[in-house]
């Protein structure tokens, strides 16, 4: 892992960049995309997450909605990270991301830019912002597998 990724300035810039210019930030009308509406109970984050999952592979991830910087940015990074991954790979990444948020051991290399959120637990009330998009994505993956059982 690049040591640059340990530089707080870099990490901040990653969050800001994705917060202001979120990637994959437009929903698709293609019926192959499945969608989850994630409305946080305790804050105003209200996003829609979409994924196109085929043959055990995540072809695309999209999202949109009203949300704070932390949730917008973390969802944007998630989308970039997971596009093109297999379901197994995606699950591993999600697992490691959650471990990081919970301040448990995790594999930095798998998380790439997502490690920018390594300190979000410092503001415990913001953890849900850093995970809302990830939760939506995980639910979509779960559903895609159920449908193939």
């Amino acid at each position: 892992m690049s040591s640059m990724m340990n530089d707080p300035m870099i990490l901040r810039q990653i969050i800001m960049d994705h917060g202001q210019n979120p990637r994959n930030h437009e929903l698709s009308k293609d019926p192959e995309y499945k969608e989850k509406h994630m409305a946080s109970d305790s804050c105003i984050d209200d996003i829609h997450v979409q994924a196109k999952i085929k043959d055990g592979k995540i072809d695309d991830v999209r999202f949109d909605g009203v949300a704070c910087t932390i949730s917008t940015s973390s969802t944007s990074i998630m989308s970039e990270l997971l596009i093109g991954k297999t379901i197994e790979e995606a699950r591993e990444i999600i697992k490691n991301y959650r471990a990081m948020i919970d301040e448990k051991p995790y594999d930095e290399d798998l998380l790439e830019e997502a490690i920018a959120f390594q300190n979000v637990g410092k503001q415990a009330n913001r953890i849900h912002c850093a995970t809302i998009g990830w939760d939506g994505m995980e639910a979509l993956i779960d559903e895609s597998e159920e449908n193939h059982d």
Partner: protein
Amino acid sequence: MDVKRIREDFPMLKVKSKKGYDLIYFDNAATAFKPYSVIDAVTKYYTNYSVNAHRGDYELGFTVDTLYEEARERVAKFINCEKKEVVFTTGASFGLNQVAYGYAGKHLQPGDVILTDEAEHASNYLPWMNIAEAKGAKLEFIPLDDNGMITPEQVEKMMSNKVKIIAIAHVTNVLGAEIDIKEISRIAHEHGAIIVVDGAQSAPHMKVDMKDLDCDFFAFSGHKLCGSTGVGVLYGKYELLEDMEPMLLGGGSNARYDMCGNILMKNPPYKFEPGTPPIEATLGMKAAIDYIDAIGMDTIYTYEHELRDYMLKKMQSELDNVEIYNADVESSIITFNIKDVFSQDAATYFSDKGISLRSGQHCAKLLMDVLQTPSTLRASLAFYNTKEEVDHFIEVCKSINKESMLDVFF
């Protein structure tokens, strides 16, 4: 159990009556005294994090939110259920109304039957009477046996495919009879009915295990459990909570709504908790549960029943001026009268001697038709009561008669 030491925890046990007697509090079924730890929990809220719950916009808000949800978890552990099955209410009365209005009101069809009985507290009778009337359903009464008990056999006899809901108390408030909920739940489910349990008098005095009882709803109050007034719990099996309408709507219980009349409610338990909750009372209830569990519910149960036996035997052997109505019932309550003295007159006399007893119809007004007396006295014990208190009570009983009871007015 070291009752001397336990009594040190309760400031109320240091209070004296107007005439200087030690206070002997035998009205524990109405409400229980609070240990210092409960008072401290309430005060701590006021002095350390006195902000609103349900929001984490700032440090203290998050702190309170976390404590509030910890209280929910603590309750879940206390009654052995999932955290998400714990709805905070303002007391047993609210919980029972919520189920009548929001579950029965949604599901009952004309001709359906709600089974209840004549030993219920008004809070577990009037809501059912009301919803039955609104829905064209019928209330039917499970006959009480000679001891005022409801037995599974009697319930079984009353069952039919019309019975949709059984609403009964776990422990009745006038006689203190312990009803076999586990078996009645089994019968209810066998017939496709649900069972709603009024646990106001059981939760403070015995282990109540939702998984074991297998009841569908269970309501109780914090204040009878040595906690604050103004807070209570409604347990419901999660699928049933999902299938119940909230009685109240307002800030906090809805996730989203728009002007076209669409509301997206939160999931249970939150959809039943609109508005600012009784925060300090909830934290007080948590402290009360901690306190009670530290002593041990089984220990409490054993002690209270021993003390009641002691009292009962003394009343039976040393007094000839009392009539006891529930001598044959397993209970921590004694329901009685002083011969020739109207209950309320007797209660005034007891009070004058420092003894707090409840007189009257105890809210289970119907039961009086069964006991055949317009009113009774009720002595309800708690784990902080003592044999010495009972002894004093016996002496006072001896001194009451139709003449002496007027002493208090002269």
